[in-house]
């Protein structure tokens, strides 16, 4: 198996213990610190990144499972932080403490990639795994809906 991972478009060679969770590999080994640690059990969604475009919980995903694949973190979601979701997040003033928001955005991006026009219920279902203790849920819902609309227009 290839010992390479493509992270945010850049190929990276890795020789770490393959059991190391992707979260800590990304944070401690290759300095992508936008992805956060919240629970270590895949229960809160703060660590959400994409592997080949699909949302995964990086805290319970061993580095092994990412070998040879494309990993995208919040830093690589868009060129200049201008993904429609990121713009909608600023417009709707979603973040409070902000800690969970990278995971929220990455999860939402994967959701919209699968379902470009989700209903309110589908947004709720799709985002149910991401906890926000600041309670920004209603703004997240609005931001996802408005980003979906903009992406459809584009």
């Amino acid at each position, binding site marked *: 198996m290839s010992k390479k991972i493509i992270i945010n478009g850049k190929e990276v060679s890795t020789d770490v213990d393959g059991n190391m969770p992707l979260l800590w590999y990304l944070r401690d080994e290759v300095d992508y*610190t936008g992805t956060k640690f*919240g629970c270590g059990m895949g229960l809160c969604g703060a660590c959400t990144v994409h592997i080949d475009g699909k949302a995964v919980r990086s805290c319970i995903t061993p580095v092994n499972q990412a070998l040879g694949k494309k990993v995208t973190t919040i830093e690589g979601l868009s060129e200049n932080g201008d993904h429609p979701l990121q713009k909608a997040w600023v417009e709707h003033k979603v973040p409070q403490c902000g800690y*969970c928001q990278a995971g929220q955005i990455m999860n939402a991006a994967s959701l919209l990639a699968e379902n470009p026009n989700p209903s309110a219920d589908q947004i709720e279902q799709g985002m149910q795994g991401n906890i926000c203790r600041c*309670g920004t849920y209603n703004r997240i819902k609005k931001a996802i809906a408005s980003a979906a609309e903009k992406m459809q227009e584009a």
Partner: protein
Amino acid sequence: MNFSRFVPQKQNLSRREFLKVSSLAAGAGFAIGSVPLVAGEATPAVQQGLGHFIKVTSDSLVTVVIKHLDKGQGVTTGLTAIVAEEMDADWSQMRWEFAPADATKYNNLFFGPVQGTGGSTAIANSWMQLRQAGAAAKHMMVKAAAKRWQVAPAEVTVAEGKIKHKSGKTLSFGDVASDVAKMTAPEKPNLKDPKDFKLIGSNIPRIDSPEKTKGKANYTLDVNQPGMLKAVIIHPPLFGATIKSLDKSEALKMKGVKAVVQTPRGVGIVADSYWTATQARQVVKIDWDESAAEKRGSKELWKSYKTMAREEGQVVRNDGDVTKAFKEAAKTINLEFEFPYLAHSAMEPMNCAVQIKEGQCDIWTGSQIPTVDQGVAASVVGLTPDKVNIHTQFAGGSFGRRAVPNADFVLDAVLIAKLSGLDAPINLQWSREDDMQAGYYRPMTYQEMKASFDDKGELSGWHQRVVSQSILRGTPFAGMIQGPLDMTLVEGGHNLPYAMDNIKVDGHEASVGVPVLWWRSVGHTHNAYSTEVFLDEVARTMGKDPVQFRLERLKEHPRHAGVLKLAAEKAGWGKKLPKNKAQGVAVHESFSSFVAEVAEVTVNDDGTYSVDKIVCAVDCGIAITPDVIKAQMEGGIGYGLGSCMSEAVTLTDGKVDQANFYNYFPMRMSKMPEIEVHIVQSGESPTGVGEPGTPPAGPAVANALRKFLKKPLTKLPFGDRLDLA
């Protein structure tokens, strides 16, 4: 957190603000500080010429130094807006930075000589301080420009970041910055008339949103100094247990492990990565001495609390004659309430980075009371506090958790750094389980509420008894307890606003070895619930409408009545609803802000239910950043409601039963109601919004659900399914 309960509620008026200008390095601009000066005496801070709140650099950027922690409440936006308003700056030129830990410059005016964020005081504290600093800056810029142009200052104006003369000449803030640096600040600068406010009260962008949506905001978790090591800690399995013996040999053999140290608080493991430290943690063997530990479980504690409640506690309010009222009553009602321990469970588990090197101690963390952390670190390391440098980071939530009288997580990190003897920077990260199980909870609380009615059916007596743990006693903040009882037990209950002839409130402090702390709105979390739910029960007994009943008894409290009327009106109180829906209401003052909430719920035949909507009205004085206020109400409601619906920390034989989000259940998106927030137009000084949205949420919902139940919800949390039988 709630210091404000114990210190004067108004800033000391004998203080005047003394403004001092100083040059930034190399004449790059000017900085202006506002140092409280007591009755004309020069404090050491003034003598040193310290105190910087605003920096203007030659590129015309205005940086506001934020002395409070931003843990999501939006203080970076609010305080920056206050300065921008008085300076007539353009929003695009505004920047901010966190202040260092230095109580001589950055103390909270409500807390005395302590730098801190809590009790929803940040805006209230900084309002006049920053307005005066901003106004002084503007005054001097005008003077400097007038001198440059050889015109009268009266002919010079400032708007949208430009200094203008009536002839059409303009200068930027940066153009005059070096001139201003040489000037003396006016002692009493003219403040703007609030009717001329442009930014305050408008819909400005949130200043920290861009970095927080790009993964660029820095939290303690992200602190990465050169050569930084990572650490984890093993805390005792029971509160009060100590280490009998430690075998670290296996852990020390692991590649990348730098140190395993026994500290007074547990065992710290330092390694080259968090992953290595976590693995090493598994092979550390500890034999614990549990002889002095708290071994009671929740069951035993409830029993003990109920026994205590049979006796009268410390009486903190006793109007009229409650004993007589009950003796002569034609009817009485009573309810017993049980509130569990609650975890703050901020999304970022507690953490702190430390480096002890060359006679200095550097600390990177998000803390609500840096002064305490500074003092604790100084005493552990053996330095004076001025050698402890605190670099404030964004906090991934806090809700009171990062305001700890013994600085617990900071202490953990400092002890590990000190005892390991390593001079490399070390970033200590608690796991979620550490965060859930190592303590600091909203106190478990038992309450008895009793009311009496006379022979005409009128309410004649009200008695509240609270049994809970003191948050302050036995901590360095015990001096804040000013009577026989720690008022965090009864706040919101002892000052019940409703007109009643006979009212009594008493409380017992239970002694339990479980560490407790302020949790978003502190004692109001349970007292708003017990009083507002019981008040509905009283109204029901008297056959009165809950809103009308409250208004009749709030005639002396126009701000309570104001929010109540507004929320009721906007929610269409009393409107016809389908059989499976109902409304409920609650109103409560906390931290000098007033909030009323009307909840609308749906209850299904199988006992499942949903909270569909909450209409909230808030009076927090002048609304500086209305959208931040709305966001805080939304979040505060979610936090309060989530706890009432599904959160509880319980103990079995002294051990915490919950560990992670599989058995501790914060609110998730599908449970979040639609929320509508209305802000009362007010000319009063601004007060806090971080906490006051939380207390009324639970009781408003409980009062709505009550319509489907035989008796009120008195045992929290409600759970997923109500007992309709």
